[in-house]
């Protein structure tokens, strides 16, 4: 029983990162109707940025967020300008399909580039609090991972506040709701797209920095994280960032439970099964229209 609870706690902590990873994907998907399957690779890039800031400058991964988020958001601007701005010109169905293909090419490119520049080695950082834990009713809670969960929730809260209150945040939400109506209200839809994409990549970068705190990264982690984020987006639906966060926690816990029940290697399978079943239950897709 204690072992199960312990695994569930670890699953919950990992689930917070799934939630943050999915938040960026969900925002981009919801606003641009673009499915960026290179999202996991952007997380990987954020992880490497934090890794090198730590290794070369000794910058703590949590502090590094201050640099990593703007850097990856800028990368997002570049990617939007060079790739996805061409994709958003199509109607919705073609848009999703083409973005899938462009994202696939981007994922391959970033993966190959990372292998070339960073080598295929697995990387992780050793912080002072990295090995520290505290006991909670006989269960062990790693400090670093708990902090990550808190920061992930904090970032999602900030993004939510921005979308709810800020002028451009409201423009982004209006665009997500109905881009033609937004255009008629005088909103620069292209800029709203660009802003949403940059925020989405910034969130991916942040997720990468937090991954490096408690786990490890390598150029190959992209597909795995893309799948996790996709599973959470499908599970939680679009529209609510906190819903996405909770979806991430649910996936983390479900993985931990299935790893206990069927053995470690099957932790990947449960999420994919949930994903497929939810898709089948909602074949018209995530926008709720048939």
């Amino acid at each position, binding site marked *: 029983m204690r072992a199960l609870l312990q695994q569930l706690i670890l699953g919950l902590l990992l689930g917070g990162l799934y939630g943050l990873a999915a938040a960026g994907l969900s925002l981009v998907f919801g606003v641009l109707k673009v499915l960026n399957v290179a999202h996991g690779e952007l997380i990987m890039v954020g992880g490497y940025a934090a890794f090198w800031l730590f290794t070369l400058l000794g910058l703590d991964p949590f502090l590094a967020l201050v640099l990593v988020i703007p850097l990856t958001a800028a990368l997002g601007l570049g990617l939007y300008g060079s*790739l996805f701005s061409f994709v958003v010109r199509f109607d919705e169905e073609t848009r*999703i399909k083409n973005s899938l293909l*462009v994202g696939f*090419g981007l994922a391959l*490119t970033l993966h190959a580039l990372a292998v070339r520049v960073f080598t295929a080695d697995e990387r992780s950082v050793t912080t002072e609090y990295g090995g520290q834990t505290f006991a909670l009713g006989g269960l062990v809670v790693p400090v670093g991972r708990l902090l990550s969960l808190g920061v992930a929730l904090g970032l999602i809260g900030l993004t939510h506040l921005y979308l709810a209150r800020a002028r451009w945040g409201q423009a982004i939400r209006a665009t997500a709701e109905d881009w033609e109506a937004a255009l008629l209200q005088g909103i620069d839809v292209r800029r709203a797209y660009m802003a949403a994409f940059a925020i989405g990549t910034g969130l991916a970068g942040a997720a990468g920095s937090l991954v490096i705190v408690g786990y490890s990264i390598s150029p190959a982690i992209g597909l795995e994280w893309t799948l996790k984020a996709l599973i959470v987006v499908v599970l939680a639906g679009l529209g609510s960032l906190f819903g996405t966060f909770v979806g991430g926690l649910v996936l983390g816990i479900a993985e931990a439970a299935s790893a206990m029940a069927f*053995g470690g290697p099957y932790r990947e399978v449960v999420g994919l*099964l949930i994903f*497929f079943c939810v*898709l089948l239950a909602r074949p018209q*897709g995530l926008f709720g229209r048939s």
Partner: protein
Amino acid sequence: MRAPGGADLRWLIATMLALIALAPVPLVVRREDLLNLGVVFLLSVALAQSWNIIAGLAGQVNLGHAAFFGLGCLVTRSLWVTGTPIALAVAAGAAVATTAGVGVGLAAFRLRGAYFAMGTLALAEILRVTVGNVLPDISTLPATTIAAYRLTHRYYAALALAVLSVLVVAAVGASRLGLGMRAVREDEAAAEASGVGAFGLKLAAVALSTALAGLAGGVFAYYHISFYLQHPFSPAWTFDAVLITFIGGVGTLQGPVLGAAFYVLLKEYLAVRWVDVHLLIFGVLFMAIVIALPGGLSEAVQRVAGRLATSRRDAGARLTG
């Protein structure tokens, strides 16, 4: 069934001639590395052509194609090493792959567009993880089989499969079936409204596609001496098929053949000089094609040919005028 006409017929003749020209190669070439390259090229043609049926003709972007290649490979290998004749083992592998393909189709064809792509990717990953857990071992051919191994046999098996895959795509493309598949690809709702049974057509496409993928897996099992049983289930096989088909020209007869030649040769050339740079180049090339040249190499060839024809006509007009 109508005979393929016009440009399709010319491309069919051209690709068949190119493949037939590869037939005498093992009689002349003794270098094993070149013959291995030939096998890889021919298998790539078959695998890309099989993906082309479901994604190019019927418009269903199946991102779980590796599952069917893997199933064909796994079944063929298991039967063959336990004494089943290779032809029978390959047939059984293709049958299992087709059955699985139809099963996946029955469940997943309720999903449209990108959701179908994501669903098939998820299913293939489930299968890959499960195979890796249940069968973590390397499969190596028995010593007696290795002693009797002739690369030439593998080469001809791959050649026969490549020819078959081109003929299947040509036949389907020119038939009523292919016409219906293209209608579903362009607009499923409109096709349904015009009395085209989209579900049945998509099932036919997935059956043909996975049968060919299973056969390709079978030939891979016959060809490769030693590999992890999980290896043929890797998403890399899907990605290869997607890249090759898009580079060559998705939905065309010649696309996968042109794409495979380009992909395999450039990959080989680059791998000799810079390890792993090829994926970088293909990734960028792929994005460029999706955004700027959706018809791939085929479209590029046709544009150049068209421009040459026009300029020749212009030159002729100037001379006579």
